[in-house]
């Protein structure tokens, strides 16, 4: 028997979530601000106006601070794979180890070369080469997010690989299917474009603060115009890629979609909840109402999920208990097939140990027939396949509401700045100061939807998190959790202090 300590699983998950969430404070700003720096510098090179150079150097310094504080925080996630998630790490290590290492080396050389030119090269290399280097930093920073997002997408939608029961590892069958899976593409484009959006909000926040204080007014106005235009374009792209991500969820992870919409009973022409209060005592299969209060937009969820207004969207109850009319296989049925797969895996292992090739071959044939349900064999109840509905519902709706607010904000900033009335629009500037922090909330809630939404799975349908963990002492994980909390909080304080000092000095100090 495998003894699974759920408090160990939960602490390991909490530690991973803490690390990933801290890491994601720094990363999206790096992605977005690098592109904005390149845009500012492009305007400088085109116009030859020294004010744009000073402005570029200012934002580049803030980019450098964020990059330096955030760099390598993601490596801690790799430490955790080897220690806390050794089963998972072993199973996927063949696939993701090499590309992630190559990505690290590529990023290192790119950064060592072009970062150096970007920061040390003013007046030492030609304007054109300096600009090229800045763009290369922007492109390289965004590309370096590719493989980790592809790896994450594979966990949500495992394609292009096959499980080898001899080695207990997933082996690559089709590299291109992994790289270009629609889930991977939507994850990469959604994550990077949301970084562009956050970078724009950051520029708006600092510039608004300058305008409120009446300092560096011209620089702030110039920055706002570029950031608002870029932010508007990024907002549209985030919306487009977000719609694509929701469509992929509906096709590949329908439980996630049902949970973040609080949809228990599947419907044809299902409505999208615009606002609502979840009934937190509601459980799958019971007769309670899912919402205490809700406002729905008719038909929109069906359109989002299947691109057709009247189509059927399965709810949590359909997915847990099955719906034969709509040909939805329930978790209970999948669990039976999964338990057969686990038993056949055990039979295969035993036959190989006894060197009984005939029995091993038969067990392998049986295992292959049910291997896509392997993960369900480890679940105790069908209801275990349901992720936390309230957390998901609120996270998703906060993300969407904020995502809808940002383009309006960018439009307002652009309008009033172009009209020359931004310094008089006192109601807008405090909102601008707040906007970056709202952007961070949208970023974090977005990842909560993606990651909490795939629970209980480490690899969708194949490996639940409780089977991915290492059997460690829970005290060890708790101790390192608080160590990380301390370390990351210190880093965050350092970032805020250095950033605030630099903002207070402004572009003249450079």
């Amino acid at each position: 028997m495998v003894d699974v300590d759920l408090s160990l699983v939960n602490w390991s998950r909490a530690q991973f979530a803490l690390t990933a969430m801290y890491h994601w404070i720094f990363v999206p700003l790096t992605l977005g601000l690098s592109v904005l720096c390149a845009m500012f510098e492009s305007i400088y090179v085109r116009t030859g106006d020294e004010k744009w150079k000073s402005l570029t150097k200012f934002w580049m310094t803030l980019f450098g601070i964020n990059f330096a504080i955030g760099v390598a925080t993601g490596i801690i996630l790799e430490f955790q794979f080897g220690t806390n998630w050794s089963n998972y790490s072993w199973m996927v290590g063949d696939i993701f180890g090499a590309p992630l290492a190559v990505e690290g080396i590529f990023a290192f050389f790119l950064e060592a070369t072009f970062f150096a030119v970007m920061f040390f090269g003013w007046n030492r290399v030609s304007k054109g080469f300096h600009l090229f280097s800045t763009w290369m930093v922007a492109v390289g920073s965004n590309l370096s997010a590719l493989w980790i997002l592809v790896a994450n997408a594979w966990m949500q939608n495992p394609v292009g690989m096959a499980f080898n029961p001899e080695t207990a590892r997933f082996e690559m069958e089709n590299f291109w299917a992994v790289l270009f899976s629609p889930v991977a593409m939507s994850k990469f484009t959604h994550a990077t474009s949301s970084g562009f959006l956050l970078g724009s909000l950051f520029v708006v926040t600092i510039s608004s603060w300058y305008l409120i204080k009446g300092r560096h007014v011209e620089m702030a106005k110039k920055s706002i115009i570029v950031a608002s235009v870029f932010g508007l374009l990024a907002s549209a792209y985030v919306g487009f890629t977000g719609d694509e991500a929701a469509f992929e969820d509906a096709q590949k992870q329908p439980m996630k979609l049902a949970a973040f919409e609080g949809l228990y009973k599947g419907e044809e022409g299902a409505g999208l909840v615009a606002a609502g209060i979840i009934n937190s005592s509601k459980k799958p299969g019971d007769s309670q109402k899912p919402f205490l209060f809700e406002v729905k937009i008719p038909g929109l969820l069906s359109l989002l999920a299947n691109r057709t207004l009247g189509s059927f969207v399965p709810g949590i109850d359909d997915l847990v208990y099955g719906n034969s009319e709509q040909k939805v296989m329930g978790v209970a049925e999948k669990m039976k097939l999964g338990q057969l797969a686990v038993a056949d895996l055990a039979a295969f292992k035993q036959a190989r140990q006894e060197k009984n090739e005939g029995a091993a071959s038969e067990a392998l044939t049986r295992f292959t027939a049910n291997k896509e349900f392997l993960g369900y064999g480890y679940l105790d109840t069908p209801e275990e396949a349901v992720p936390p509905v309230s957390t998901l519902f609120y996270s998703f709706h906060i993300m969407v509401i904020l995502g809808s607010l940002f383009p309006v904000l960018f439009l307002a900033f652009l309008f009033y700045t172009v009209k020359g009335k931004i310094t008089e629009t006192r109601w807008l500037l405090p909102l601008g100061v707040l906007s970056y922090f709202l952007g961070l909330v949208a970023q974090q809630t977005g990842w909560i939807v993606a990651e909490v939404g795939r629970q209980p799975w480490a690899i969708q349908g194949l490996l639940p998190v409780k089977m991915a963990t290492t059997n460690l002492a829970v005290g060890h994980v708790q101790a390192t959790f608080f160590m990380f909390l301390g370390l990351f909080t210190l880093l965050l304080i350092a970032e805020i202090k250095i950033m605030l000092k630099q903002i207070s000095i402004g572009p003249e100090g450079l």
Partner: protein
Amino acid sequence: MSQPLTRVYTFYRNGFRAMTVGKTLWKIILIKLIIMFAVLKLFFFPNYLKTNFQTDEQRADHVLEQLSRPVVQNN
């Protein structure tokens, strides 16, 4: 040193010397990396399978054993 290498060396040397806020940032990066690799990785985050098993075959057997047995949950 050949001339191009000298130029690259001088470029980096002068760049590092002229840093202002960058010096503080480098200190933070170095302290962070030392904490991460010399403390956390070394004492708190050993690779479980590499530490406890000698060969890949043993590691595969261990993971397979975990995957092929029924689960008992402790809450």
